[in-house]
Every structure is written in structure tokens, then in C-alpha cells.
């Protein structure tokens, strides 16, 4: 199996390299004006320069903080509320339709509402991320509770587990595969909302920064920022996948 996976990895790396090469070629041939599409080597140079001199590192850190804490907030909230609803079949039946109404609600539509509450603050950004990224984890938790095998309910009754013990030792571990998949989705939402939140609130993160670059037509720097977002998204999802792999190692081959 291993050589096949290595081969796939290599193939996907080659495809990525080809896309960058194509991008370079299109720019070099001036098929698109470099004001709109700077070549990758210039974007790369801008990236290195901005990190070195432009204080980009601090901005990235701030965005990572928004994303991470917002995500944590959403994950804890989702698991907590999801457990409270999931443990009762009645609560599930009553609340599921309402939750389905909130879920597809675009979280960015909440910015105006939450700006009214919190003002243009860090807390506002966190609140929007917390709300927007809540749903995948919340619904996964509820669903994970609903899929506990009837046999395990009986085992729990026979062992006389308390409600709390049941949640901690059976329901949550049973829901864990779905919760982790939900948390992976919600991480991407957290990143998107960090950018939007920073652009709106003027919080000096990476999102705010790329908007400034765009306004002053520094496209190589703009692309450098976009590249960074791509990297953050990719790396964070990979990290959660690793966590998932480790936490779910019991699932066997």
C-alpha cells in the first residue's frame, strides 16, 4: 500500500508544480497584466520581504489567534450544546428543525447584528466565528448521540451508568468520529470568518492586511497574502486530520 500512497503524493505534488509553472508562463507571456496577476516568483519575493521587514509574521499570528480561539469556542460550544440536546430523544425531535434553520444561515450576515452588540472589537470577531463555526460540530454531536447502538444503552443500564457517565464514556466517544469531522469543517469556516471579521473590524490581522495591499495595487503582496491563507488552511486541516487519525486509531484498518 505504501508505495502507492507515496506515488499518489508525488503525482499530486507534480500537478501542483505544473499549475505554478503555468501561472509563471501566463505572467511571463503577459497574457494577463501583472497588475492583476503578478508572476509567482514576484509574489514569493514579496512574501519573503513582508515577513522579513513588513511585520507580516505578527499579523499572521493575530489571524491564527482569531481562527484558533474562535474555533475552540465553536467546538466547545458545539459539543456542550450538542450533548445537552443529543442526550434526550425528545429534545432532539423538538429542536432539530430549528437548528436546521440556523445552520445554512450565512454567518457573515450576523456581522451587522453583532457589531451592534460588541462594536468593532476582537470579541465581535470571536463571536461571529464562534457562531458561524458552531454548526458542523453541534449537529455532528447531536447525530453522534443519536447513533449510539441500542445494545450499548442496555450495557449502560446493566452497568448502572449515571447520565454523566453515559455521556462521557459512551455517547461522546461514539460521536467522536462525527465530531472530529465536524470540527475539521468548522476550522475552514473559522478561517473564512477571521478574514471577513478582520476586514470589517480593522483588526490588524492578515485579512485586514491583504485588503490594504489590494487598495494600493500591490498585487504581488496581495497574492503573497492569499498564498499564506492557503497555507494556513491547508496546514490546519492537516493538523486536525492527524489528531483525528490518532484519536480514532481504535477504528482499525
Amino acid at each position: 500500500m505504501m508505495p502507492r500512497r507515496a506515488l499518489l503524493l508525488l503525482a499530486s505534488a507534480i500537478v501542483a508544480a505544473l499549475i505554478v509553472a503555468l501561472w509563471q508562463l501566463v505572467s511571463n507571456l503577459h497574457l494577463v497584466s501583472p497588475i492583476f496577476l503578478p508572476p509567482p516568483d514576484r509574489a514569493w519575493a514579496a512574501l519573503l520581504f513582508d515577513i522579513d521587514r513588513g511585520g507580516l509574521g505578527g499579523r499572521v499570528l493575530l489571524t491564527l489567534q482569531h481562527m484558533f480561539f474562535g474555533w475552540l469556542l465553536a467546538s466547545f460550544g458545539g459539543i456542550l450544546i450538542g450533548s445537552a440536546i443529543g442526550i434526550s430523544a425528545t429534545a432532539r425531535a423538538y429542536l432539530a428543525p430549528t437548528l436546521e434553520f440556523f445552520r445554512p444561515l450565512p454567518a457573515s450576515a450576523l456581522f451587522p447584528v453583532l457589531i451592534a452588540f460588541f462594536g468593532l472589537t476582537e470579541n465581535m470577531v470571536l463571536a461571529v466565528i464562534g457562531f458561524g463555526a458552531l454548526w458542523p460540530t453541534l449537529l455532528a454531536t447531536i447525530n453522534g448521540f443519536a447513533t449510539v447502538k441500542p445494545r450499548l444503552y442496555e450495557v449502560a443500564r446493566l452497568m448502572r451508568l449515571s447520565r454523566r457517565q453515559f455521556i462521557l464514556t459512551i455517547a461522546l466517544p461514539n460521536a467522536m468520529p462525527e465530531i472530529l469531522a465536524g470540527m475539521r469543517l468548522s476550522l475552514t469556516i473559522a478561517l473564512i470568518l477571521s478574514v471577513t471579521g478582520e476586514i470589517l473590524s480593522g483588526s490588524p490581522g492578515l485579512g485586514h492586511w491583504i485588503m490594504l495591499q489590494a487598495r494600493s495595487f500591490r498585487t504581488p503582496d496581495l497574492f503573497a497574502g492569499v498564498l499564506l491563507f492557503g497555507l494556513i488552511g491547508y496546514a490546519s486541516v492537516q493538523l486536525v486530520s492527524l489528531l483525528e487519525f490518532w484519536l480514532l486509531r481504535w477504528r482499525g484498518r
Partner: protein
Amino acid sequence: MTAPSAEPPLIAFRDIDVAIGGRPILTGINLEIYKGEFLCIVGPSGCGKTTLLRLAAGLLPPGSGTVSYEGKPVAGPQRDVAVVFQDYGDALLPWRTAAGNIALVYETMGTPRAERAERIAAVLARVGLAEHADKYPSQLSGGMQQRLQIARCLAQEPKLLLMDEPFGALDAITRQDLQDQVLKIVADSGTTVCFVTHDLEEAIYLGHRVVAMKPHPGRIAATYDVDLPYPRDQQTTPEQPAFMQLRRTLLEFIRGAET
């Protein structure tokens, strides 16, 4: 293994009727299981053998009549009554290792942390899983998973062990191996067993007594004493005249019950 004595029964069913959704499942059940006894229940599917076991476990209240355990009516699951289910795959916690599955019992019993590791190791050793403590159920064979479920029940130190067709999903060799292991564990611990099966030979091989049930609605049709000495042997016990005779009787009974 001690034979049933004149003591009061460990568990007694008195005039039990059970109906589920208006359909009678069990009717007029009177049965006593004595301390140290290995009682097997056989019967065609739909005869309510599993329902009888669930009554004993306190998972299901009787419609009428009483189930009493140690002289007191059963109101719910008891700490010292353990159940081994047939579907070991669903009854184990797949996210916990073998040791972790046993630990569940000690966590709920509030056993001091310091004692747990030693007791887990001892229980796993009794079913021959000492080397597999750190494996997840998905890494164990079916027979090993069932042994793990039995070990989890043993950790409860049950006075009464209820087994619901525990070896029905296993291959013949594994089944025989587990039958002997259960007999040995029961002989060592003196646990009372109520064992439901549809395999007549298994019932005769294991039990002191075999209760035969009939369906529609489920009722007890006959009770047979198994006149065979312990320890029993997979090779020689089935060759004894008493074994063969009882098998013939039960076989005729089952054919009669199904038609």
C-alpha cells in the same frame, strides 16, 4: 461444581406473563434457578427465551407475575447480575482497548484507581487475553471479543451470569473452546448461570438442567435433568448414552414444537 441444593432459589419466576404491543410473548412462566446451577434454556426462535433472560436481568418488567432475585422482586439491573450478549461487536466499546473495556466496570463500581490495573490483568488472564490487554476490539478475532465480553462480566463478580446465545456467531472449534472455558470459570467461581441457546447439544453439554420452551406464546414445555458428571469432555461426553438419549428426546421435542 455443586449440584442444586434444597436452599431457596437464587432467582424465581412466578406466573409470569409478558405481552409486547398486545402480542403475548410469554405466558404462565414458573421457573426457579438455584445457586451454583447451570441452567440451559432451549427452544425454537420466537419462544421468548431471550425475553425470559431480559426479565431476569431487570431490563424488562413482567406484565404480570413476579421475578424475584434472592427473595426480593427485581426492579431493575443489579450490580451482581451480568449479561453476555450474542452480538459481542455491539456490546463492547470499540474505542477502548481490552483493558479499557474491563476498566469500565471498575470505574462505575468506584474501585480505587490503584487496584484497577491488577484486577484488570487478573480478569483478562482468566479468559486467556492477558497478552491482548492493549488491543482494540477491532484487532481481536470474534472468539476473543466474546471472551472479552465474558471477562467484562466476570469483573462484575456476578452471582448470576445470564448468557444469551453467546456462542451462536462463532465457528465450531471456537465455540467448543469457549464452552470449556465457561465451564471451568463457573466451576472455579461457583457462579450461577442461565444460558440461552438454540443448540441442543450445547445445552446438554453445559447444563445441570435443560428447560425446553414452546412458542406462540412462549411457555415452558418441559424440564430435563442432565445426568452427566462434570468435568465434561468434548470427546467423551457426547458419546455417553445419557447424552445421546437426552439429545433424541430434545430433538423430537423441538420438531414437535415447530410444526
